[in-house]
């Protein structure tokens, strides 16, 4: 599958998983022989509930250590330095019990920026997320869409090479979803490699450069988006697309 995307590679940070396995109580939750994300992205990870999409994302981000197997970034097994160049947005935004600005400052403080630089950066970020004027509001009083935008801004404040998003719009209405998608695509255009989980086929069509379809802990298919939607190779993909069309 690696060769499939090789023609699209131009020096993007590469993330790659080999022989990943996570078992629980005799069953296998995740079983990934080989998955290489080496295109320009965004990569969209699709699949039904419980397919292991979140588990895979957390493995790639180093939040959980698989029973066996290895995740490599740029050819090197994932380490603290590599992880610091990744960021993740969770399905349900986890915002600190502080103001909107303090949520961003929390990340910026760790980058040893001067006070003035942090203030400027916060203003820019809030502007980009359409949260200007909300700087001093408690983050927990934001609406669902605003909260998720703040979570994305906070992730982007780390200036990550790779941004993982786990179903960031699954709880949002269409207009809030659209704003999030626009933000993510802007980040992608600026060079952040996007890896995004969704179960929304429409979103996968709108956002995906390549699609990873997961089913029962395994990668059923990994293909460029146009191939995946026009000529799915696997039985699982055909079934998934057909099922979704019925919906």
């Amino acid at each position: 599958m690696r060769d499939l995307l090789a023609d699209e590679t131009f020096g993007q940070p590469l993330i790659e998983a080999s022989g990943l396995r996570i078992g629980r109580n005799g069953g296998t939750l995740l079983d990934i022989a080989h998955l290489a994300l080496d295109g320009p992205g965004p990569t969209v990870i699709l699949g039904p509930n419980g397919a292991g999409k979140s588990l895979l994302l957390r493995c790639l981000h180093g939040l959980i250590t698989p029973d066996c197997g290895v995740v490599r970034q740029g050819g090197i097994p994932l380490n603290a330095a590599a992880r610091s160049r990744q960021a993740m947005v969770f399905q349900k935004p986890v915002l600190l019990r502080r103001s909107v600005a303090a949520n961003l400052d929390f990340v910026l403080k760790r980058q040893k920026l001067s006070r003035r630089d942090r203030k400027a950066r916060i203003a820019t970020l809030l502007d980009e997320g359409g949260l200007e004027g909300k700087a001093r509001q408690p983050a927990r009083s934001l609406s669902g869409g605003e909260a998720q935008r703040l979570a994305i801004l906070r992730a982007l404040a780390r200036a990550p090479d790779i941004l993982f998003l786990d179903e960031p719009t699954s709880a949002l209405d269409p207009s809030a979803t659209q704003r999030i998608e626009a933000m993510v695509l802007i980040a992608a255009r600026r060079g952040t490699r996007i890896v995004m989980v969704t179960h929304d086929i429409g979103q996968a069509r709108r956002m995906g450069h390549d699609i990873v379809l997961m089913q029962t802990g395994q990668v059923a298919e990994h293909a460029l988006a146009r191939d995946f939607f026009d000529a799915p190779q696997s039985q699982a993909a055909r079934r998934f697309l057909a099922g979704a069309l019925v919906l």
Partner: protein
Amino acid sequence: MLLILSGDSELWAIVLLSLKVSLLAVVVAAAIGMPLGAALAVGRFPGRRLVVVLLNALMGLPPVVVGLLVYLMLSRSGPLGVLQLLYTPTAMIIAQVVLVTPIIAALTRQTVETLDAEYAEQLRSLGVSRLASVPTLVWDGRVALLTALLAGFGRAIAEVGAVIMVGGNINHVTRVMTTTIALETSKGNLALALALGAILIGIAVSVTGLVSLLAVREGQGEMRHA
């Protein structure tokens, strides 16, 4: 009521001593209980669960038993007898510290642990180590932690059994609100007992009011999500 309004100096000396003893006890209990609670919340070591259960059990320590234990420790023949602390305000502070520390530690552990369950992955994702996440958890749990302190203070200032045993209820030395109320009531001096009772209720109500006020303020942030 006349006693309160007339600024009776003996009465206010008693009130002041009560506040001093209980505030100091809460400060010391917080200094021990909060780090202990936070460590129990984020630390992983063998026997942790046992300590947590023990701590929760200690929350309900009967004050008289605490009084007895502290008395035995401080009495002339006890291990700390040489310090000659029995029947001093310090002895009362010690008894209240023993009573209040488990409360503060247990509530701190609960607060920090609940918050940690919510924050752990996000903080790890942001590159915050386990140890470095403790100040974040404490700060974000500040309202609940303050509530724990107030609860501890409420328990300390309303307590009578332990302080009467180790303080001795000595006039001008270790006589606090609760012990004076008990004594004066038994002597039939209901005016002073009632005046002190009113002040004690006032303090208790203020503390409870402050706690619920904090709870409401904390809740406000969440309301729009509901």
